[in-house]
């Protein structure tokens, strides 16, 4: 129950952070007209609502409103408060217009409000964590399921089809590569790709002839997993980042997913290996249910119990990785405000404890509750 409330609060911060901490007021009256600036932003961009010129200066703190209802934290993460430059402590005397405008978590070196950045951090950490684990989960369940369901012995195809399959995969990769190389606007390559897919389907429907052999799917996937697992996560991430000229958050998400899918896949594989030998699966196979349906409807729901646990732990790992990246200042797009980047500033300004304590506390609480949740799920499963 406590955990649920905590996660709901965190989600609230992540989704509505921009309405809690924003330099734009919730409601204001200016030159006799009423505005709801934080809600009107998209409409202004579309041109449906017109704002006075003062609003477009992006200096919301100094506009002489007639009436105003500010947000809870009247600063955006990027807002630079020129009156409180240079690391104002939360307890220090701050040069603000009033109680409401105080920087409750202090300011950083260039006068940005730490509380606003802290609230933004929720969205970043949760977004990166959730999306990367989502992608990692899709890849991991697919690969692990494939390896676990077929194993080394159950993907039985005729020998000639196995050879054609290998040959076909190489060719397919080649054509896809060429499509990317020519930006997809070369007709002959697209025709070749079509022919290739046609050949694939043709061979697929061809009758089975000659001896059968088992295609070692499990061995191949386990090899890939083993190779990725041998590289420590942070090293893996940092080794891939120099390939990208201007890293964006999307790249970071994909890279974290690339690291995290192996853990999920290993577990899914083990579960599938266990469940596929159970009697009800054999019965299902006897009735003639297709392999896909057996995996989807009968094995996966059974396996998910323990997969959720890994999700919780992987989520924690992804958030920690994101914090590492922000802290080391590598890989994140320039100017991204996250807990890690706030903590990084302490290295240059050792006395600014508020830049370390609050972001760290948030990371700690989230990691702790995720561990707790994992533990709970574990006891539920066993």
């Amino acid at each position, binding site marked *: 129950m406590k955990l649920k409330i905590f996660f709901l609060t965190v989600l609230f911060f992540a989704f509505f952070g921009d309405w809690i901490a924003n330099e734009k007021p919730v409601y204001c009256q200016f030159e006799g007209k009423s505005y709801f600036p934080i809600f009107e932003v998209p409409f202004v961009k579309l041109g449906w609502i017109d704002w006075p010129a003062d609003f477009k200066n992006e200096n919301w703190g100094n506009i002489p409103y007639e009436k105003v209802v500010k947000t809870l934290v009247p600063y955006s993460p990027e807002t630079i408060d020129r009156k409180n430059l240079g690391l104002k402590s939360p307890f220090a005397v701050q040069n603000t217009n009033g109680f409401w405008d105080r920087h409750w978590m202090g300011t950083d070196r260039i006068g940005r409000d730490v509380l606003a950045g802290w609230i933004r951090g929720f969205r970043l950490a949760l977004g990166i964590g959730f999306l990367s684990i989502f992608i990692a989960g899709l890849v991991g369940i697919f690969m692990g399921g494939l390896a676990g369901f077929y194993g080394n012995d159950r993907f039985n195809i005729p020998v000639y089809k196995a050879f054609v399959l290998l040959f076909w995969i190489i060719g397919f990769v080649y054509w896809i590569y060429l499509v990317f190389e020519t930006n997809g606007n070369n007709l002959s390559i697209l025709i070749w790709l079509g022919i290739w897919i046609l050949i694939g389907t043709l061979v697929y429907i061809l009758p089975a002839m000659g001896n059968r052999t088992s295609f070692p799917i499990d061995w191949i996937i386990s090899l890939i997993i083993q190779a990725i697992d041998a590289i420590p996560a942070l*090293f893996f991430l*940092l080794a891939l980042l120099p390939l990208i000229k201007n890293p964006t958050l999307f790249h970071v998400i994909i890279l974290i997913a690339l690291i995290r899918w192996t853990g999920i896949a290993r577990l899914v594989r083990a579960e599938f290996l266990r469940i596929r030998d159970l009697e009800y699966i054999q019965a299902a196979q006897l009735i003639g249910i297709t392999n896909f349906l057996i995996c989807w409807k009968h094995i996966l729901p059974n396996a998910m119990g323990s997969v959720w646990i890994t999700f919780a732990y992987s989520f924690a790992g992804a958030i920690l990785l994101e914090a590492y990246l922000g802290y080391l200042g590598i890989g994140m797009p320039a100017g991204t405000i996250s807990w890690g980047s706030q903590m990084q500033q302490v290295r240059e300004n050792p006395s600014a404890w508020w830049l370390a304590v609050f972001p760290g506390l948030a990371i700690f609480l989230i990691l*702790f509750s995720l561990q707790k949740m994992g533990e709970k799920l574990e006891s539920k499963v066993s």
Partner: protein
Amino acid sequence: MLTYLVKRISTLLLSLWIISVCLFFLQKNATVDVVMLQSKARSNGSFYVHPLASEKVYRAEAVRLNLDRPLFYFAMKPAMFPDTFYKIQYPEAVKVQKKLLLATGDWALVQTYFQALTAFYEKVALTKNGPVSIFWKQQLQEMANTSDLSAVKAACKGSDEMRKPYIEELRKIEGLLDLLSYQTPSFFSWLPSPRWNGYDNQFHSWFSKIIHGDIGISSRDGRPVWDKLEEAIPWTLWVNGLAILLAYLFAMPVGILMAILPKSRWLGWINNFLLALYALPAFWVGNMLLFQATLPEYGFSFFSISGWSNLQREGGFLSQPIPFLLQLSLPVFCMAYGLAAYLTSYMQSTFSKVLNEPYMLFAKTKGISRMRLYFKHALPNALLPQIVFVAGIIPALITGSVVIEVIFNIPGMGRLFIDSMLSQDFTTVYSFVLLVSVLTAVGLIISDILLVVTDPRIRLSRENRNE
């Protein structure tokens, strides 16, 4: 047993080989080009004169560095590509010629066109600097850097006065442009033509060097990477080794005590505390310890952020053990507490699992004393997974130690890695990743083999499953 070992080790070697192939290609595609750096540094400024001139310098440098060879054992390119496409080295030239080739499909023609451009440039470069030659140099810069034929054609235009001295070359280029614009690759020239490049390729020589222990030279300061690593490894080993030792020293007795003591509400609280300790990010704690607790106002002055080089100079642990250990205390503490927390609850769970085994009940009914029960019968069985566990956590430990080393300014492997990363010294970075992954993989396999050797149940199940 032997077949299991052979299988396991051969897959390990295979996966390490796959990693090294991947790392090699990553290194080749990283944003920093070693040949480019070298040719800029060694060409006395002639590199910057003109793209067509720098191409020549670049190619010479690639030959000198022995990099004008195919990348891998085999290549699969469309049939229109020549066998010797890798001989084109300068990245800009590769980009333009590849595009032209993909658009026209006639390698001989593309080649003649570029030769014509180079010949033109050489003639312009030989003549005295004047408005005409400067104009054509600029135009040539445009021509060399674009694969858009109409743009090249536009660049060829100029007043008759300008064109007159070079009219032959210009006519030749314009003729070639016309030919190029009519060409399109035939349908069948898109088919792949796999080629075997033989052993004289870049990967082969890189890999055989690594096998012989030569992991390369830093592209930043020219020092062998191995020398850098040699200085860094002891620090990382000290910090990690001490952390593991401390964690075990704490976890063993506490874990056993928690398993033995009767269940109470306190135990739940301690468990929660351990979980919190485990979730506490070490880099946060390290950060705060370093910047808040080492300030002289608080009275902790035993740690100094620049103290590492002094220690190194004066001989480390043997000559002055106490300052050495004091200096290490903060980072080791940061590394150790999370591990200790995890190990404690792990120890507790394995120990209580062992205590619930039927053979323990049997021993109890026989009337063995408690001490004998716990330490003779339960401990060896509970200890085994613990020891095997160490190898499994090495990757996580190394990852954690990177950040700790950066925070505490320890000149260890992690900081070396981050420093090379920030100075874009990718030779060091990738050799490093390879080394760490070899260590990790070996650690994992040792733990696996230990497990199999010591526990016949696991061995049998694995042999039966043909893993």
